[in-house]
C-alpha cells in the first residue's frame, strides 16, 4: 500500500502548486470583494434601471462557466489585443471579476436585509448617508452576508483549479503532472484533497467563529 515512487522533491512540487492556489485565491478574493462591494452598493443605490448595464455584465460573469471565460479572455487579450500578459495575470483578472459578480449579489442582499425603518431612524437623527452606511448598514449587513461570503471564498479557492488552462501550474495541475509520471492516481489525489482541506478548513472555521461571536451580543 505504501510502496510509492513519490519523493520529497515531488512533495515539494505539490506544495508549490498549493502555494500557487493560495496566491491566486487570495488575490482574486481580495480584489473581487472590493469590486463586489463597490458594484453591490452602486446597484442598490441607483436602482434597477440605471444599474441595468452593470447588472447585465455581472450576470454574464455569473452565468458563463469559468473555464470558458478563461479561454476566451486569454485568446482575446493575447491574440486580438496583443497584450503580452502572463497566464497568471489573466487568471487573476478573470477570477477577480468572477468573484466580484457573485460578491455584488451578496452585498446587495446584505444591504437589503437592513430594515428600512432602522436606516430612516438613523437619517432622522441627522446622520449623513456615509455615516448611515458606515455605522448602521455595515455592521448589520456584514452579519447577514458573512456566511455566503465564506461560501464564496471557499468556492473560488476550488474553482481556481481551472486556471491550469492558462498555463498556471496550481495544485490540481501539479497533481495531474505527477499522476502522468508516477501512475499512482489514488494516492496522489488523496494527497491533493488533503492539501485542499488544509487550505480551506481554517477559513471555514474562522467564518464559523465570527458568526458565533457576532450573533451573541
Amino acid at each position, binding site marked *: 500500500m505504501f510502496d510509492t515512487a513519490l*519523493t520529497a*522533491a*515531488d512533495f515539494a*512540487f505539490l506544495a508549490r502548486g498549493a502555494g500557487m492556489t493560495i496566491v491566486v485565491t487570495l488575490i482574486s478574493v481580495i480584489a473581487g470583494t472590493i469590486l463586489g462591494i463597490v458594484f453591490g452598493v452602486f446597484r442598490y443605490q441607483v436602482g434597477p434601471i440605471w444599474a441595468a448595464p452593470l447588472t447585465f455584465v455581472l450576470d454574464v460573469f455569473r452565468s458563463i462557466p469559468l473555464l470558458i471565460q478563461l*479561454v476566451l479572455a*486569454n*485568446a482575446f487579450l*493575447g*491574440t486580438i489585443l*496583443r497584450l*503580452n500578459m502572463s497566464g497568471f495575470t489573466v487568471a487573476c483578472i478573470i477570477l477577480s471579476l468572477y468573484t466580484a459578480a457573485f460578491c455584488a449579489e451578496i452585498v446587495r442582499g446584505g444591504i437589503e436585509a437592513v430594515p428600512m425603518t432602522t436606516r430612516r431612524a438613523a437619517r432622522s437623527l441627522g446622520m449623513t448617508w456615509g455615516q448611515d452606511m458606515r455605522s448602521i448598514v455595515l455592521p448589520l449587513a456584514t452579519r447577514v452576508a458573512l456566511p455566503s461570503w465564506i461560501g464564496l471564498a471557499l468556492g473560488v479557492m476550488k474553482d481556481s483549479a481551472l486556471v491550469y488552462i*492558462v*498555463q498556471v501550474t496550481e495544485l490540481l495541475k*501539479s497533481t495531474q*503532472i*505527477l499522476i*502522468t*509520471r508516477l501512475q499512482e492516481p489514488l494516492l496522489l489525489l488523496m494527497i491533493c484533497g488533503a492539501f485542499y482541506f488544509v487550505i480551506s478548513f481554517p477559513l471555514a472555521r474562522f467564518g464559523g467563529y465570527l458568526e458565533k461571536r457576532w450573533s451573541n451580543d
Partner: protein
Amino acid sequence: MKQTTLGLGLLAATAAMAAPSYADKLDDIIASGTLRCAVVLDFPPMGMRDDSNNPIGFDVDYCNDLAAALGVTAEIVETPFPERIPALMSGRVDVGVASTSDTLERAKTVGMSIPYYAFENAVVANEGVEMATWEDMKGKTVGATAGTYEAIWLEKQITEWGEGTFRPYQTQADVFLALSQGQLDATVSTVEVANANVASGNFPGIKIVDKAPMVPDYVSLFTLREEYGLINYLNLFVNQQVRTGRYAELYEKWIGEGEPADLTIPGVYR
C-alpha cells in the same frame, strides 16, 4: 467634378484600408522573445517529465532548438493529444511540436511543415531464433496486439507467404511476454516501443532484428495555416536539423541506437 471627388474618396479609402502594416507570426514571435510550443508530455520518449517534473524528450529538445534558431526563449505548453490544435487556434501556442501525423484532414485546419520525424516499425525476435532481416519471419510463429495496424500487416504477410502462424494478443505487454518466453518467434511494434522494452529489462531474451517495410507514420510541425512566412521557416528548420546531424543526434539521445527514419518519400516532391 463629382467624378474627381468620387475618385479621391476611393483613393483615400484604399489607402486607409492598406495602411495598417501587417506583421506576421514570425515577426511576432521574434518581437515577443518567446516561442510557445504545444508539446504532448505523456508520450515518451517524444515528450515526458524528468524526476524533478521538468519537460524532457525529443519534442522538447526540438522546440528548444527551434527557439534557439529564432533567437528567442522556448516555452513548453503542455497539451494533451486532443488539445493540440485547439491550443493553436485559441492563441495559447505559436507552433505545435507534438508528434502530429500530417493527415489531410488536419491540414484543412492548420498548416503542416515537412515531416520532422517518422514513427517506423521494427521486427523484434526471441534471441534463440536465427533472424537477420524482416523476411526471415517467413514460416515462423509471429504475433501482435489484435486489431492494430501491425497485426493486420503481419497477418497479411503470413497469408501471402502461405506458411507460418499468426497469434493475436490482448495487449502489447502480453505480446512481449510471449516473445520473451519463447511462445512467439517474432513480432512487429514501433521502433520506440521496441527500444523501450529492450532497454527496460522487463522482457529478457528479446532483440531488435530489422525495420519492418511498413509505411511510417510521418509527423509534422504545425502552425496557423495562413502563416506562410512561419511555415517556410519551419520547413527550412527541419531541413537544417537533418543536414547538421542534429536529427540523428536527438534520435540517438531519445530513441536509441540505429539509423533514424528517412524523412523523404521516393518518387514524389516535397
